[in-house]
């Protein structure tokens, strides 16, 4: 009976199934998900509420090479002894790991602005969370289209 069943699988069906399996394996490489990003953000902010706004993320909308993407984070803050930005954390959705970088500033920074270059593995949304001196959290995000991905290529 079993033998009979096996014979009924046509070559086409077999190839389709094998192809599907191969694709399943190919998609396997570790890629963080939005859920992982949310978890990583939760780890930083704890139970605090994250407000939208005050944070501006400057990223090119279209990226040719994901290996070095210029990023500027600006926070709307007077940066005085009484009111300043304590930290800025940058997260991404689809790299193998949700964290990108954390920056710790203080009132001596004068201006709440940091520029750097990051890697992006896929077309995705990058999120920055900023912690103010009064303990509140603010967030900003930017979407990027990446044509050549970083991180996952073999040598």
């Amino acid at each position: 009976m079993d033998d009979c069943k096996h014979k009924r699988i046509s070559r086409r069906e077999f190839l389709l199934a094998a192809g599907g399996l191969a694709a399943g394996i190919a998609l396997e490489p570790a890629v963080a998900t939005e859920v992982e990003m949310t978890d990583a953000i939760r780890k930083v902010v704890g139970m605090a509420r994250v407000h939208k706004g005050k944070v501006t993320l400057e990223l090119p909308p279209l990226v040719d090479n994901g290996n070095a993407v210029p990023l500027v984070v600006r926070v709307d803050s007077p940066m005085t002894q009484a009111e300043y930005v304590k930290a800025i954390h940058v997260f991404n959705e689809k790299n193998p790991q949700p964290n990108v970088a954390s920056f710790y500033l203080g009132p001596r920074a004068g201006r709440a602005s940091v520029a750097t270059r990051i890697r992006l593995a896929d077309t995705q949304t990058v999120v920055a969370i900023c912690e103010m001196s009064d303990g509140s959290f603010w967030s900003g995000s930017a979407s990027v289209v990446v044509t050549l991905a970083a991180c996952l290529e073999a040598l």
Partner: protein
Amino acid sequence: MARALINVPTTARRGEIIEIKALVSHEMETGFRHTQLGVLIPRDIVTQFVCTYNGAEVFRAEFYPAMAANPFIAFSTIATKSGTIAFEWIGDNGFSVTESAAISVA
């Protein structure tokens, strides 16, 4: 020895916001790549960057593998008095680089 490039203004007025740029040459191996034989290349990145102004910390950063190779960072600080601005990068496998610049504040 890894090379560090820094850009700090040599003179400034007291209270002026100065921009600082710092870059260290480092491959920033992510730890997610494989060789053609399928062997995982171990992670080797710069994990921390600290900037001190006359010994007091004014800026600190933590890096993850999502930072580009040769990590570059630009930030600002208020020029308070003449002295040295020192930079330190710390990373995997005992990586450590220090660099400093003198600033005179009028």
